[in-house]
């Protein structure tokens, strides 16, 4: 079991009237990718920025790297790396100059070219920040977050607004960071991002952590439905579902989806299809995802819930 590197207890943040974070507690383990998953306005940024010591909590305890956020601000800052939400940098510095500028703030002398290699920016090193695409800008932000060789890297929505290709590139960078032994605190409202990257997921909604665990734990616990989609099935499928007492959904494109609640039921569905000699064109068996976990927990969808 790895060590706890961030410990949050009873964290509360109130803005004027609004309770943005409502007494949450959780631990982050060393060397893991911890994903803070929640819709817009859930309180993700508020929470990470309190841990990063740049916002002040209303109440509660936070310990990071064995240090109290209230007392050891500068020590903490030297040992963490931060990619703020909607990272942006000086328009008229090149990629290399930007990374260099930030490394100077930490008075360190990292190998900048190596850093740029790490985030795949070597070929863009002399381009002005303002001329970069969104994905490249985010990677600059990640490089900047690494200038002090931090033990923990905070990435606040690193892929929001990126196209799928750019998103995957950023994911690759994050996987690389994990491999190099860094702890990663990732906030996101993309369940896929959490599923692909995270060892540990906390789902936050309206200031409360409503579920916490590994992706498969969460799915097993909150939404064990297995979707069996049958494409181009002949008559009699409805009968199969009915006999087994399962819900069946008819899609317009001729696909029917039967929702099984465990593996045995899946096998039974398939056996029934065979026994009744029902022909079909294609078969797809899919476990529930975090999106559905969130839906079943809150009755809202992850991407449209909260305030967009």
């Amino acid at each position: 079991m790895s060590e706890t590197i961030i410990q949050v207890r009873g964290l509360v943040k109130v803005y004027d009237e609004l309770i943005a974070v409502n007494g949450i507690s959780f631990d982050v383990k060393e060397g893991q990718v911890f994903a803070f998953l929640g819709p817009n306005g859930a309180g993700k940024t508020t929470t990470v920025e309190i841990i990063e010591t740049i916002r002040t909590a209303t109440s509660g305890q936070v310990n990071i790297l064995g240090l109290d956020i209230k007392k050891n601000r500068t020590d903490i800052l030297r040992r963490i790396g931060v990619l703020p939400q909607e990272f942006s940098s000086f328009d008229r510095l090149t990629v290399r100059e930007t990374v260099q500028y930030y490394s100077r703030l930490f008075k360190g002398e990292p190998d900048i070219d190596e850093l740029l290699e790490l985030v795949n920016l070597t070929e863009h090193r002399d381009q002005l920040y303002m001329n970069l695409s969104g994905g490249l800008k985010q990677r600059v932000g990640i490089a900047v977050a690494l200038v002090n060789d931090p033990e923990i890297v905070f990435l606040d929505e690193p892929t929001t607004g990126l196209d799928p290709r750019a998103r995957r590139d950023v994911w690759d960078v994050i996987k690389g960071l994990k491999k190099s032994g860094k702890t990663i605190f990732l906030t996101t409202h993309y369940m896929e991002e959490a599923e692909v990257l995270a060892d540990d997921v906390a789902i936050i909604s309206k200031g409360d952590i409503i579920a916490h665990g590994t992706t498969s734990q969460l799915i097993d616990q909150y939404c064990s439905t297995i979707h069996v989609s049958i494409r181009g099935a002949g008559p009699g499928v409805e009968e199969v579902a009915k006999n087994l007492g399962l819900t069946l959904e008819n899609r317009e494109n001729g696909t029917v989806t039967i929702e099984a609640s465990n593996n045995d039921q899946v096998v039974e569905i398939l056996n029934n299809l065979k026994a009744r000699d029902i022909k079909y064109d294609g078969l797809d068996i899919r476990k529930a995802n975090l999106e559905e976990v969130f839906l079943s927990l809150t009755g809202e969808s992850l991407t449209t819930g909260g305030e967009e």
Partner: protein
Amino acid sequence: MMDAKLIYANLIMLLKEFHRNKASMFFVLLFPIILMLLFGFIFQDQGEMEYDLLVQDLDGGPNARNLTAMINSTGLFGVTDVDPSEEPGQYLIDHKANAMLIIPEGYSDQFDAIMLSRTTGLPVNETVSVKIVYDPANSAAMTKIGILNSIIDGVNKGASGAPDVLVLEMETTVSDDFEYIDFFAPGIIAMSVMTTALFGTVGMNTELRQKGILRKLATTPLSRSEWLLANILYQLCMAVLSTISILLVGMGLFGLRPHINLFLPLFVLLNVFAFSGIGMLITRFVKDADGAQAAANAVMFPMMFLSGTFFPLETMPDFLKTVANFLPLYYVNEGMRAAMITLDEGTLMTSTVILVVLAIVIFVLGVLLTSWKHD
């Protein structure tokens, strides 16, 4: 094609935003109010607007008294008599005045003699002069000379035509090596350094806040006072650039020949410290970009109007003159002028001391009041 509905919807949205942005609204409203007040006070008693004029009567004869009475009767001047024993140039400096009319000894007799000779038909190209000693740096002095000239014209017309009897000689309080431009240069430098430092700082910091860069900086070991100082130094570079270009253009095109000494860079430095510092404080308290701009305007305009650069303080109501004494730019102006033209040590010292204290106060406030956590 323009869609009126869309325009209307946008208008409403913008008005709503404005209405919901308290800081921006405050300053947007405050600004015209300040301007209104300023101009209102400046012009409310225009009919009675009166310039001060020092008169040193070295003659004391009836014609001299006549001239003084005539000047008085125009209602444009409040005349103050100066003892004949005073040295005019020094007196002006000591009393922070800008113009003194000197009626020379023997004026009355000479005037009578000329008038007599004219009636008897003897040669008439003799004249008698009065002298004005003035501070050419001061625009009020120039106005006064204009008014005096028209009064003297009146005297000449009254004295039965022919060549003029009375002549106004002019003498400046500073050496004649200086041209008119020399007296404007210090004010222009002070003004432009102030504007760049103030607006440069406010503009840059609001932009960086909007882009979230200040939030990123908050996660680095960079301290707020380091950032403050870096900003001030950056603005100092800007100020040095603009000062040099003003001097170069002035020297190259207008024959500007100011004294150049260490006080010039010193006042530029203090100017930047004060106004860049004020800019940092503004961005600390006014988070919104438009609001911060408006706040900077609210700082700039009183300085522009009341520190004596472009508008003579003399004609303003007393309390505005008092206000001027609390404006940093007033001391920058005074100091720069002393450094580049008059070399008056007293002014150099007072301006330096006042500005150093001010710069320190603003810097300390900047360090104490601003913290990354507010960004």
